[in-house]
């Protein structure tokens, strides 16, 4: 095929556009100066200051808890939804079902946040014994939009999978539940892992929905970062941003490995 150099140039420029801002943040997180853009020397002082910040560390712990719980919940519900979408054919109400499953992915976050908060307030009004807003409400809210991503991943994986093994199992007399737990689940296990990691990353990133549904005692990391960067750019936040970028890259590497293992298992 004839090469078109300007296409390559456009791709290179596009990728540079995507990475340069993040690279600048990482470089300046190692700057000794408090003045963010004046380079005075290499230093890790902002990292040690970050580790000593109690408020940020407490918020990070909250975010990790919320991320683990909501990703687990999202994988359970999302797998069921993805299975229904790819294996149940044209069941009644499929259209409404698939819209309700996928819509939370694209609906603006302010809408999801506000509507879930109003749900939690109404639930508390009707059932006063429920605990107030806090980690539990953030977990439910996060799982409700990350399960859409999990459902799409599982649906895609099941769509690309031959049904012969499942059919062989049921021909040999296995009940549907046994087929699902002994055959389907192990075959889609890598997709489950990838879905969990993506749901976890999405939960860790969310500011808007958490701000709506959080209680007074539950502040997540993005909420602390947001209130801090509204006041301006700070070297400590640069250090935190660099760590988050590194953590995301590692998690995505794991998700990619899990997906690749899944693809090779199928061959």
């Amino acid at each position: 095929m004839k090469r078109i150099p300007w296409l390559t140039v456009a791709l290179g420029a596009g990728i540079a556009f995507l990475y340069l801002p993040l690279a600048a943040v990482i470089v300046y997180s190692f700057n000794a100066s408090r003045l963010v853009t004046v380079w005075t020397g290499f230093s890790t002082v902002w990292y040690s200051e970050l580790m000593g910040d109690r408020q940020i560390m407490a918020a990070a712990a909250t975010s990790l808890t919320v991320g683990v719980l909501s990703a687990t919940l999202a994988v359970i519900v999302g797998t069921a939804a993805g299975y229904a979408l790819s294996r149940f054919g044209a069941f009644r109400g499929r259209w409404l079902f698939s819209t309700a499953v996928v819509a939370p992915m694209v609906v603006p976050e302010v809408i999801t946040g506000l509507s879930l908060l109003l749900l939690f307030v109404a639930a508390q009004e009707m059932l006063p014994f429920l605990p107030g807003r806090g980690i539990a409400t953030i977990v439910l809210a996060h799982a409700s939009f990350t399960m859409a991503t999990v459902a799409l991943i599982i649906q895609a994986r099941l769509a690309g999978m031959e049904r012969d093994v499942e059919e062989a199992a049921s021909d040999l007399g296995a009940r549907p539940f046994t087929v699902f737990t002994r055959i389907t689940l192990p075959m889609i296990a890598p997709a489950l892992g990838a879905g969990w990691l993506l749901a976890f990353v999405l939960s860790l990133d969310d500011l808007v929905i958490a701000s709506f549904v959080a209680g007074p005692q539950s502040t997540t990391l993005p909420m602390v970062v947001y209130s801090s960067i509204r006041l301006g750019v700070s070297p400590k936040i640069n250090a935190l941003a660099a760590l988050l970028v590194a953590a995301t890259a590692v998690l995505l590497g794991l998700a990619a490995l899990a997906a690749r293992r899944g693809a090779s298992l199928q061959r």
Partner: protein
Amino acid sequence: MLGAPWAWSAVLFLLPLAIVLKISFARTQIGVPPYTPLFEGGALRATLDNYRDVLTDSFYFGAYLSSLKIAAVATVVALLVGYPMAYAIARAPEYRRGLLLLLVVLPFWTSLLIRIYAWMGLLRPGGVINSLLESLGLIDEPLRLINTTGAVCLGMVYAYLPFMVLPLYARLERMDPSLREAAGDLGARPWRVFLSVTLPLSMPGVVAGALLVFIPCVGEFVIPDLLGGPDTVMIGKVLWSEFFSSRDWPLSAALTVTMVAVLVIPILLLQRVLHREAS
């Protein structure tokens, strides 16, 4: 298998929207909850005041209009930037495509807040871009780059570019190269081949990518809040401040219902396009 996700979606997606609809017909009151009940003493006490405010107040109407406009500009720019990228990846050697695609998608999984923060560091007066231009002697005083509507568009293109590239790539990659070759053999110039073969065949990808960028941009809060100026009025930001600062729940609910109404057609269209792509 079907019951659990159905119940989940009903309780955590459909029911909340119904509650928003209900509260949008209430009045504010001081107390817990901060809105009046819809039924009192067996009588319906609904009001359309909130909708009248949303639809007739030029502030809210203007916020909707400028949200749609800013999102549309960002979508067009993202298409112009993203199409050549998707095309280049689709025509790259097969063993390289996975890596290139990963490079494009990776930033999307980094926190939006962090990515917008990175642009704050670049754009602010005394930031990386202004210092660079000043040291090169191109400008004498810092340019006003941040807190502008242009910065908001830039941030949106940056944040949602992967959403544009992915569906375009999926479409372009499956395209039969012999169609292009046939047009070339028949004497069409490269631009002519692109305009009459490649572009029309990639239209479903263009529509899917444009909707995936446009829909979240309309209701975006973080980007206009951190990169926009006082004259950048977007509906997501207005909704946030009506709720958190003015504490007007019924009005916020009416704004949400109107936003869903504005976005429902693009969302249904997206659902159809994605569904057809999948089958």
